[in-house]
């Protein structure tokens, strides 16, 4: 039996972060808009109940917003990034190791905790996260990441589970899997889902029971691995490509600890390259990059440090060189000498389709514009035609970056901290 894995996922994460510092947002419908205030990327339960869907463009929602008094906010990634650090810190004591999957989802290695009542353990962890950060979460426990993801979805969907689902229980696992649409299984793409449905494979349960050979024929080795994961056999190679707008992370442990900044940058550069590749492969650009690294948590007698910084990519980019430069800026700020780092990673957030990229370049005064045009020419020279084409498309569109309804940087800017009234 493989050691249990948990996935902790923050509920309506961006909305929950906003509510932490603005109580007037509690109990009312709230939506958070994507970069450039384009479409809804986070919705409170009340907004979901009003039928607002992920990705709905805001200009289609105007009537609903007015009719129901929906509170509309620009995204505040600085806040979401800082709150994520706190959420992970609150989880640390509850797991042997963790792997950040996206800004609001983290996998936890529960090896060594098997003897405990893991449902109670997960509840204690949720309570600690809620206490430290106010953020509500759900936890799914299972033997593989794919199953943990499924467990989490089940915990979210069924209020009777009180936010924790442990799918190591055979009866519960069967029950959940047979009610779980195959297209919603983590890693099953639209095309594969259609093929499976044509074969009469409608649920996670029937997908699990499909012969391995057939799985391979339908969806190559990727689907074969996925079927194995659904059977409780972990596959290290499960493709961790996050869905659009959800962000993605590239994380690795080091064979030998890294103690120098140059060594760290060597690793982070590789991850940034890989992250850029992933973005380009999926036709996405990112608006936020986080670089993080930490020491070996299993050796508490050694000096411990965890560093993490988020930088805004402005303009949004999928250019690996830009990502490396951003990773360097972040790493420089987070770096502390004198520690042996054993794990590092790059996380990208606020992803949008490259052709929808807000054109921030052409905003502002003429001088700024001239400088930016110079920079653009430079980029064209260095990177060739493709960049020039998208840039000119943007020029016609006259995009400008909007974030008119952004909340303050409550936790990261001393001039924007919340006020406590003493009146």
């Amino acid at each position: 039996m493989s050691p249990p894995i948990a996935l902790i996922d923050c509920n309506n994460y961006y909305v929950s972060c906003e509510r932490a510092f603005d109580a007037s947002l509690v109990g009312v419908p709230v939506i958070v808009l994507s970069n450039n205030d384009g479409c809804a990327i986070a919705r409170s339960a009340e907004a979901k109940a009003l039928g607002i869907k992920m990705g709905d463009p805001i200009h289609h929602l105007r009537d609903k917003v007015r009719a129901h008094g929906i509170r509309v906010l620009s995204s505040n990634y600085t806040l979401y990034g800082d709150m994520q650090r706190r959420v992970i810190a609150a989880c640390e004591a509850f797991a042997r190791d963790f792997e950040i999957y996206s800004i609001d989802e983290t996998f936890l290695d529960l090896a060594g905790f098997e003897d405990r009542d893991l449902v109670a353990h997960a509840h204690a962890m949720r309570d600690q996260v809620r206490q430290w950060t106010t953020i509500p979460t759900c936890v799914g426990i299972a033997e593989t990441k794919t199953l943990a993801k499924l467990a989490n979805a089940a915990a979210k969907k069924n209020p009777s589970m009180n936010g924790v689902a442990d799918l190591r229980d055979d009866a519960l696992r069967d029950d959940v899997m047979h009610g779980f649409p195959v297209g919603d299984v983590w890693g099953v793409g639209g095309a594969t889902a259609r093929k499976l449905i044509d074969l009469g494979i409608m649920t996670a349960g029937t997908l699990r029971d499909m012969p391995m050979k057939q799985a391979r024929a339908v969806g190559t080795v990727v689907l074969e691995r996925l079927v194995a994961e659904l059977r409780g056999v972990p596959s290290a190679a499960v493709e961790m490509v996050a869905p659009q707008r959800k962000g993605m992370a590239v994380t690795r442990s080091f064979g030998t600890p890294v103690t120098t900044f140059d060594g760290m940058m060597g690793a982070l550069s590789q991850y940034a390259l890989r992250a850029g590749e992933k973005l380009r492969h999926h036709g996405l650009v990112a608006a936020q990059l986080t670089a993080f690294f930490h020491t070996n948590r299993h050796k508490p007698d050694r000096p411990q440090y965890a560093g993490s910084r988020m930088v805004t990519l402005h303009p949004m980019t999928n250019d690996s060189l830009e990502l490396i430069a951003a990773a360097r800026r972040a790493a420089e700020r987070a770096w502390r000498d004198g520690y042996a780092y054993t794990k590092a990673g790059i996380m990208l957030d606020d992803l949008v389709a490259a052709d929808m990229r807000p054109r921030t370049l052409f905003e502002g005064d003429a001088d700024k514009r001239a400088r930016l045009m110079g920079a653009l020419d430079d980029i064209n020279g260095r990177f060739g035609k493709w960049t020039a084409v998208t840039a000119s498309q943007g020029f016609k569109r006259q995009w400008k970056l909007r974030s008119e309804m952004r909340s303050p940087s409550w936790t990261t800017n001393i001039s924007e901290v919340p006020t406590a009234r003493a009146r």
Partner: protein
Amino acid sequence: MPFELVPHEVPFFLCDTPAGFPSPAQDDMQEPIDLGAWLVEHPAASYIMRVDGQSMAGAGINDGDLIVVNRAKKPQSGAIVVALVFGDRTLKRLRYVDGRHWLVPEADGFTEILVDENVEIWGVVVGVARKMA
């Protein structure tokens, strides 16, 4: 006579870390004082806020001061807390009087608030920071 039975004393020293001459290696490790780290002992659960008003002047917390609010610490009677009163963040001292919790100001002219279902204790104030001039 067997050796074990020979009376003998084993000297017993309680060793302290030598306080005299610090090793050069330790000296290399000295960092400048980080007042922020001293003030914020539990950064993952602490939030900085700015005080607006004089109702806690009696506790040494003035208008414009920065306070460190810790959510990991249990609010106990006597602690200065940030509480949400009908959703408004309010700075007061928590007091337990006659079986009820109260939010008590520490300056003249301000009223006490009974802790009921409209009040939520948000965090405990563990530090205050102020620049002079």
